[in-house]
C-alpha cells in the first residue's frame, strides 16, 4: 500500500479545482510563526538497518517482571469475559461512530458507558471518550478557556507530569499562561493554589490521588475557584472513585481520567481511554461525541449522536475541538469491566489494592533509612518512598533481579532523586511485597 496516495497530476488537479496555484498557496493562511523551521530528521536508512533498529527497541520490552509501577497506568486484573465480549464482531469492527446511521447497538453501548462514568464520578454529563487521560485534561482546560474567556490556567505540580507536558505542548501556540503551583513535599499546596486563583483564572487543575499517591479533598479550593468564576478541573483514578470522595461531591466542574485502569490492558502504552465528564451547564463546551437516548416517531426507545452542531464536520475551524475520534472499543471495554465488577466488585478491587499498598508501605518504611515522603498524608494504592540513596540506583539493582520497584520521581521532580513512586493492585500478593522489601533492603 502506498502511503503517499496522490500522484503529482492528481495534486495538480485538486489545486486547480480549489483554485490555488501551489501547495504553499493552499496553506498560506497558516502564520509564519506557527510553521516548523525544519524537520530534524536523520539521514535515510536501508530496510535492513531499520529492521535491526526496530528489533533493538522491541527487545527492550519485558513482560516477565514483578512490577510495582503505576503513575497513571495500573496493572489491574482483566477478566477473560472482557476480551470475549469486546471481540464480538459487532463491536470489534466498529470504527468511530461518526455517521448518524451508526448502529443502535454501538450508540447504546456509548450511552451506557457515559451513564456508568457519570455515576462513578458523580457528575452530570460525559462524552463518548477521547484518546487518553492527558488529552482529556487538555480538552477540559480548553472547555474552561472558552467558557470563561480567560487565558490563565493554574495547575498543581502534583498533577501527573506527563499530563502537564501534554498540556504545555498542546497550548504552546495558544497564548495561554500556565501557572504551575509547586507541590509541598508530595502534597498539593492548597493555600498556594487558592492564592493563585484570581479573577483572571480560567481554571484550576488538580488530581486525586495526586501523582505522589496522596489523597486530598479539594472542596475548599473548588469553592474558592467558584468565587472567582473559575472552572474547577480534577483528573482522577477511576477505580479508586468508589471509595474516595467523588469529583461531584467536591464540587468539581469538570472531571477527567485515564480510563486504562478500568479493564484495559497496559499493552506497552495504549490504546487507552480519556474519560471526560462535566456539570450540565458546561456540556456545550464538551468536545467529541455524545450519545443521547430518545424516542422515535412510533414511541420506541432509540439512541442518537447529539450536540453535534459544534463539531468539526459542521463547524470546521470554529469547531469546539479538532478531536474527531473517540475510543469506542476502549470505552466499551471500560463499560464491560464496570458492569462485570459492579459496585461491590469495584469497591473490593479498590480496597484490595489499597490494602496491598499499605502493607508495602509498612514493609518498606520499616527498613532502616527508608521513610515515606508524606508520612502523615492519606494514600490509596500508591505512595512515594524516600531512600538514603538515589532511587534510580535502587530501581536498577532490583531490575537486574526481575523486579521493577517503582517509578523514580527524580525524572520529573528535581530534589526527589532519592524517591520512588510505588504502586500495588489487587494482583500483588503479600509474598511479592515481602520479596520486594527483602531485595530493597539488600540493595541499600
Amino acid at each position, binding site marked *: 500500500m502506498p502511503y503517499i496516495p496522490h500522484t503529482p497530476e492528481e495534486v495538480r488537479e485538486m489545486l486547480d479545482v480549489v483554485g490555488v496555484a501551489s501547495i504553499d498557496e493552499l496553506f498560506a493562511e497558516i502564520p509564519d510563526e506557527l510553521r516548523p523551521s525544519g524537520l530534524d530528521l536523520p539521514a535515510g536508512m536501508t530496510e535492513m538497518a531499520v529492521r535491526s533498529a526496530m528489533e533493538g527497541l522491541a527487545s527492550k520490552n519485558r513482560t516477565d517482571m514483578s512490577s510495582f509501577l503505576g503513575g497513571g497506568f495500573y496493572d489491574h486484573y482483566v477478566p477473560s469475559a472482557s476480551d470475549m465480549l469486546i471481540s464480538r464482531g459487532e463491536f470489534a469492527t466498529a470504527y468511530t461512530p461518526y455517521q448518524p446511521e451508526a448502529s443502535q447497538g454501538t450508540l447504546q453501548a456509548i450511552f451506557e458507558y457515559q451513564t456508568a462514568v457519570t455515576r462513578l464520578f458523580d457528575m452530570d454529563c460525559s462524552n463518548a471518550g477521547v484518546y487518553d487521560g492527558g488529552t482529556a485534561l487538555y480538552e477540559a482546560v480548553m472547555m474552561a478557556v472558552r467558557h470563561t474567556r480567560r487565558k490563565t490556567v493554574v495547575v498543581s505540580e502534583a498533577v501527573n507530569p506527563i499530563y502537564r507536558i501534554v498540556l504545555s505542548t498542546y497550548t504552546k501556540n495558544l497564548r495561554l499562561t500556565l501557572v504551575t503551583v509547586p507541590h509541598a513535599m508530595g502534597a498539593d499546596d492548597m493555600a498556594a493554589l487558592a492564592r493563585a486563583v484570581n479573577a483572571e483564572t480560567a481554571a484550576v487543575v488538580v488530581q486525586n490521588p495526586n501523582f505522589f499517591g496522596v489523597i486530598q479533598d479539594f472542596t475548599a479550593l473548588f469553592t474558592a475557584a467558584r468565587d472567582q468564576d473559575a472552572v474547577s478541573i480534577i483528573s482522577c483514578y477511576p477505580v479508586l472513585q468508589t471509595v474516595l470522595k467523588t469529583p461531584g461531591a467536591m464540587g468539581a466542574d469538570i472531571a477527567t481520567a485515564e480510563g486504562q485502569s478500568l479493564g484495559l490492558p497496559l499493552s506497552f502504552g495504549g490504546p487507552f481511554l480519556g474519560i471526560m465528564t462535566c456539570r450540565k451547564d458546561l456540556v*456545550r463546551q464538551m468536545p467529541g461525541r455524545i450519545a443521547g437516548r430518545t424516542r422515535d416517531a412510533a414511541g420506541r426507545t432509540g439512541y442518537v449522536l447529539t450536540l453535534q*452542531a*459544534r463539531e468539526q464536520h*459542521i*463547524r470546521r475551524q*470554529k469547531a469546539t475541538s479538532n478531536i474527531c475520534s473517540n475510543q469506542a472499543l476502549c470505552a466499551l471495554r471500560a463499560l464491560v469491566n464496570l458492569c462485570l465488577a459492579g459496585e461491590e466488585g469495584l469497591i473490593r478491587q479498590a480496597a484490595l489494592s489499597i490494602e496491598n499498598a499499605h502493607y508495602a508501605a509498612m514493609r518498606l518504611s520499616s527498613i532502616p533509612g527508608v521513610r515515606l515522603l508524606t508520612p502523615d498524608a492519606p494514600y490509596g494504592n500508591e505512595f512515594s518512598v524516600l531512600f538514603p540513596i538515589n532511587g534510580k540506583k535502587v530501581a536498577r539493582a532490583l531490575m537486574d533481579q526481575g523486579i521493577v520497584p517503582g517509578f523514580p520521581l527524580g525524572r520529573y521532580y528535581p530534589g526527589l532523586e532519592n524517591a520512588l513512586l510505588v504502586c500495588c493492585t489487587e494482583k500483588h500478593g503479600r509474598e511479592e511485597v515481602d520479596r520486594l522489601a527483602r531485595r530493597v533492603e539488600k540493595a541499600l
Partner: protein
Amino acid sequence: MIPKDLLYSKTHEWAKIEGGIATVGITDFAQEQLGDITYVDLPKVGTVFEAGQEMGSVESVKAASELYCPVSGEVVEINQELDAAPEKINADPFGEGWMIKVKVTDEPDDLLSPEEYAEIAQAEH
C-alpha cells in the same frame, strides 16, 4: 420580514437604538436559515464590546453560528428567558427573541438600512 425601524449588520444581527440603548437580536432571515434554535450563548452583563466583536453564539439542530455585536458599548441586560426558551428566537426574532441590550458608546457608520439589508438577505437566499 425586515422591520423599517431597525438597523442591520452584514452578519444578520439587528439593532434598535433608543435613548442610547441598543436592543440587539438576529433577523428573521437568520433564524430561518438556522432552523430550530436549541441554545443561545449570551455574554455577561457588564461585558464591553467593540462593534463587530464576537458576543456569543446561537445553536440550532443543524448548525452553530457566532453572534457579533453590531454596536460598541457595554452589555446592560440580557434576555434570560432565552435560556429556557430559545425557540422564542424562531417565533419572534424582532420581539420576544431579542438577545441583549447595550449602552451604546459608538455606532459604526456601516450599519445597514432595512433596504440595504434586504438586498444582502436576498443575495444569500
